[in-house]
């Protein structure tokens, strides 16, 4: 189990490094998709099978496909321009900040006591009872929020047409 975890961690690190260094956005999206697939396996090992399925369905099936659609819509010339210059103008300062952040993160993870709790799977039945029991109004609020998002996207699109 622990070897599988380390293997997943190494593959995840390699994929994320790829995302950071790849120049073409299309390849970047594909690498993120692979990393999210690894994450779905990790979710399953953490005892959340429903969330693992949702990661595949929602992230790989909806969100990253949305990214690919957007890349298709912005056309090849914008992607080519992004490929030519891939780093921001003030990137050394950002890299310095990131180095400090990485050191802090490593120190934080290093000095922890080992967690010995065994992982039990908590299935979709429990999750459904929690969602439609004590968290019912939060679920409704999320539904309303998603409806508002549809309206917001429509408004953005309508503004685009008016501008021409």
């Amino acid at each position, binding site marked *: *189990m622990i070897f599988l*975890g380390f293997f*997943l*961690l190494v593959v*995840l690190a390699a994929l*994320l*490094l790829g*995302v*950071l260094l790849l120049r073409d*956005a299309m390849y*970047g*999206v594909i690498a*993120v998709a692979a*990393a999210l697939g690894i*994450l779905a396996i*990790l*979710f399953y090992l*953490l005892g*959340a099978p429903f*969330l693992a399925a*949702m990661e595949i369905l*929602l*992230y790989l099936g*909806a*969100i990253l496909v949305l*990214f690919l659609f*957007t*890349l298709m819509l*912005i056309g090849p010339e*914008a992607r080519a321009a*992004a490929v030519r*210059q891939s*780093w*921001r103008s003030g*990137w050394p300062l*950002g*890299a310095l*900040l*990131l180095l400090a952040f*990485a050191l802090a*993160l490593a120190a*934080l*993870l290093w000095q*922890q006591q*080992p967690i010995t*709790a065994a*992982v039990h799977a*908590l299935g979709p039945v*429990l*999750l459904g*009872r*929690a*969602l439609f029991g004590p968290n019912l109004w939060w679920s409704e609020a999320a539904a309303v*929020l*998603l409806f508002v*998002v549809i309206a917001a*996207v429509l408004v*953005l699109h309508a503004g*685009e047409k008016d*501008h021409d």
Partner: protein
Amino acid sequence: MIEIALAAAALLFFVGLALILLRRSLVFWLLGVELLFNAALLVALAGGARWHAIGGQVLALFIMALSGAALAPSLALLLRIRRELGTLNVDGLRMLREREKQDD
């Protein structure tokens, strides 16, 4: 397993932040935001697994819905930026008002 999940979350957060701070393309910027959301999701699930509580999964599900809700208008704005400014360069997004005739 929980420690590995926390290490993976730290890795995701770091790379997400690096994409936002270093990359020039707006598409990579949004991918970085997605990675940050996934790091939060993984920490919520690790907490739920540590204390054997379903609350972690509930929180993770809401984070998923919120990240989807945040991404759709962001991508619409990205297409709008591409149309209005003709570029996806993050460094170029400094104009806070409408483009006027002053450029000529």
